[in-house]
């Protein structure tokens, strides 16, 4: 490569199929390639979890002839991790356009993941046809008012799942809405500043590329509720590629899709699925593994590809 900027490195890492640990200290990103020895490090009290995103079951096209098969491959990869993850976060677009039977297929496949539990937030593909009716019937239980958003604590860290695709109209941005924002402010209100916070939602909570709708219009209000915390990790999907940004104590991260890659912001006429040879596409789809180590901030985020 002629140029080795951060994005260049990310692309390079993705294309060689290497897993990369990202760590941030004082707002500066650094990375290292994960070796089996590094992956085997497991300090006491540490845990890891997995982010699966944009499974798009039901999609069929040149960019992926079988999105069910690639999800299964990702699940096999998760089950082969040296450290068993505590749980899975699915950050939305389980289905491609709510195709008939797709929710069932995803549920059946995810039963095969060797974790205690999977938490969900919806993507626009999961809710656009019926305003979220089927999604909330399946995944609304245990969420705030059955509306899909939720929080839970795990080993001292506070996890918050937000829904930003149910007001997906107007200018094409994600939106959280007043009710959810008010709930969020209360939800984090009693937590100490040192509580590690992990927020997950489908559409990025930062302005990745508004022209393609890759932003959440009221995200700033959500982040305002969380600025006082020492470590906030924001995990999103929707854009089918790994991008990172650090803003003070907040680290933003977007995950790859398990189905097909999308172009870098503004690099193509439209954000449609990238048609690339299968063997190469496999290096641009995958899964995110996040490790939490007590007392060592922030969280280590590892993206690994199928290729």
């Amino acid at each position, binding site marked *: 490569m002629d140029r080795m900027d951060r994005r260049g490195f990310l692309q390079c890492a993705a294309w060689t199929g290497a897993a990369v640990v990202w760590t941030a200290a004082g707002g500066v990103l650094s990375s290292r390639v994960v070796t089996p020895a590094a992956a085997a490090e497991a300090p006491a009290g540490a845990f890891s979890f997995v982010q699966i995103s944009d499974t798009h079951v039901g*999609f*069929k*096209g*040149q*960019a992926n002839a079988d999105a069910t098969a690639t999800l299964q491959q990702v699940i096999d990869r998760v089950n082969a991790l040296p450290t068993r993850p505590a749980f899975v976060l699915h950050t939305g677009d389980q289905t*491609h*356009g*709510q*195709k008939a039977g797709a929710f069932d297929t995803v549920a059946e496949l995810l039963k095969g993941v060797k974790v205690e539990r999977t938490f969900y937030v919806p993507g*626009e*593909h999961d809710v*656009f*046809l019926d305003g979220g009716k089927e999604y909330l019937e399946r995944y609304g239980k245990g969420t705030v008012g059955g509306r899909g958003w939720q929080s839970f604590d795990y080993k001292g860290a506070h996890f918050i799942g937000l829904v930003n695709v149910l007001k*997906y*109209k*107007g*200018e*094409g941005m994600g939106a959280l809405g007043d009710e959810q924002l008010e709930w969020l402010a209360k939800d984090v209100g009693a937590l100490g500043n040192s509580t590690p916070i992990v927020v997950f939602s489908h559409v990025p909570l930062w302005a990745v590329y508004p*022209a*393609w*709708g890759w932003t959440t219009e009221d995200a700033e209000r959500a982040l305002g509720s969380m600025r006082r915390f020492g470590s906030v990790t924001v995990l999103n999907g929707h854009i089918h590629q790994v991008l990172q940004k650090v803003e003070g104590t907040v680290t933003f991260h977007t995950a790859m899709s398990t189905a097909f890659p999308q172009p870098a912001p503004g690099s193509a*006429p*439209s*954000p*449609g*699925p990238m*048609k690339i040879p299968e063997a190469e596409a496999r290096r641009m789809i995958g899964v995110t593994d996040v490790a939490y180590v007590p007392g060592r901030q922030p969280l280590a985020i590892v993206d690994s590809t199928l290729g």
Partner: protein
Amino acid sequence: MLKLTSLVAVALAGILATASHAPAARPASVGIKDFTYGPAVLTVPVGAQVTWTNHDEESHTITSTTGAFGSAGLSHDETFTQTFARPGTYAYFCALHPQMRATVVVR
């Protein structure tokens, strides 16, 4: 001269359609390519049938801003057809990519 001939032909077609009360207008079509409806503004006569075809790999919808009509997600090469029985301006968008917007004008 060529222009005049086609004008006459269009006029004749109009008369024929009115006379027979048959399906009034020729089918009109909108293509979806690169997350764009083409044409962005389609003008059709009352009673016209409009068919949308999605040429993208990504799914798109045709969703009326007023809820007057709407498609499911159209996969690659799938189509959706809507008949417009009343005059008016019908704005629509893609429920999956709401930045995609266009209009059908029925006269």
